[in-house]
């Protein structure tokens, strides 16, 4: 081997050892720097996509749009009623909690965000949203969709954040099955990259009375997700040697994820 090549190899190995032994915080700093550089391009790309989508929307007939507008107005009216009712219930709940001397639960503030990049990596199920630290987004806070839990924040950055989806193997949620005392850990499955992947609910008891169609909610344990957020519906149930597990169809349509809500505030069990 030529001396120059040997020197290059030694330098490469030195750099490799340095990279492999970086601390978690240093890696995060590197990632922040990286995303700070590419964020303008991501934003521009997202704007371009929005323009294209806007153009295709304009192509739709005005009749369709009028019908959609009317339906949206109806829905808005209904949601206003629901919100009013919700506020009444919240006030009543608060009064009752105070009366019972319960610890006051921190109210959650939901920040709406748009998905600007879908699945940027090959193997991880992640998306990038257009809200970052300046909007109050913090690491590992829950992200919700209109139909249930979407995932959690992996990395809040300046002007954007990466969200690890519920369908990823790395996003685990303490979950309970409605109508049963069963509690397990719900996570995505490796290698499932189609539009409607199933989740796996593990560590259930062998004689759990879990049936297809039952709903699965968060337990609120573990300090990551608030309680009673819908996760999905039981699709099938299998018993193993020591425990049992169920396959769960997520409540959120991950193939059509556009607007999400990031919760800010403390998660309390």
């Amino acid at each position, binding site marked *: 081997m030529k001396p*120059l090549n040997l020197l290059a190899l030694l330098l490469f190995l030195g750099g490799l050892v340095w*990279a492999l032994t*970086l601390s978690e915080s240093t890696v*995060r700093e590197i990632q922040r720097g990286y995303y700070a550089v*590419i964020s303008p391009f991501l934003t521009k790309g997202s704007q371009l996509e929005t323009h294209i989508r806007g153009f295709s929307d304009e192509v739709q007939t005005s009749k369709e749009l009028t019908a959609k507008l009317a339906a949206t107005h109806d829905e808005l009216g209904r949601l206003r009623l629901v919100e009013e009712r919700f506020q009444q219930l919240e006030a009543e709940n608060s009064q009752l909690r105070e009366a019972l001397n319960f610890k006051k639960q921190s109210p959650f503030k939901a920040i709406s965000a748009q998905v600007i990049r879908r699945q940027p990596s090959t193997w991880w199920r992640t998306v990038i949203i257009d809200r970052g630290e300046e909007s109050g987004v913090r690491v590992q806070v829950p992200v919700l969709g209109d139909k249930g839990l979407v995932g959690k924040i992996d990395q809040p950055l300046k002007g954007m954040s990466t969200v690890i989806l519920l369908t990823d193997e*790395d996003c*685990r949620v303490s979950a309970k099955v409605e109508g049963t005392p069963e509690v397990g850990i719900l996570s995505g499955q*490796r290698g499932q990259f189609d539009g409607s992947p199933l989740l796996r609910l593990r560590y259930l008891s062998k004689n759990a009375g879990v049936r297809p169609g039952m709903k699965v909610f968060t337990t609120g344990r573990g300090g*990551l997700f608030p309680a009673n957020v819908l996760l999905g519906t039981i699709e099938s149930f299998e018993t193993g040697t020591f425990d049992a597990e169920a396959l769960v169809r997520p409540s959120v349509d991950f193939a059509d994820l556009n607007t999400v809500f990031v919760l800010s505030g403390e998660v309390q069990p």
Partner: protein
Amino acid sequence: MIRYTFTIILLLLIANIAQQFIPILPELANARVLLIPLVFLCAAVTVNYSSMLLLAFLCGFLWDAQNTLGPHGGDATVYEHPVASLVFGYSIVLYALMGFLMQGIQPLFRQGKWHFSAMLSGVAVFLYLLAEFLLINFVRGDFVFPAATRYQILYSSVLTMIFSPLVFAILFKLAKLTGYTIRYDGLKKSRTRRFILHT
């Protein structure tokens, strides 16, 4: 040589930005064109050993900066079984291995048989993705290799390989602009042979 390597670094940075705009193709098992590996593989066969290592380090570093996930967090008593993830820097090793593979057929490339390198770039992307997925299996346990993943790897490799002649054309242009000679031994030999035949 230095100017050529510098322009390749610039090309890799441009490829990194362009990669952000390349969507996945749900119709093809969520495959996508992997532009950064492609530029690296094509460049690896045109440069010397030390430049290839430099490019491998840069590509692996950028790749991991984009894709490394953070820790799961949460209460360890509830989330008892942590899911292991790939550490920052593993891509540098994989890129270097792919680079060595491409350097192995450099003699053929220098003979003017660039199409071998183009095909090998597809093979190298396939091996890269396969190695990455097997590594995930290794660190997380429970070996799984579903058909969807096999197709994703296959389609991504083929899609990426299709664009390799274009990248080679850009690299030849860059070499010309920077005055770098990608040694074309094949052409030299044929000229020499012609010269011998004439005399």
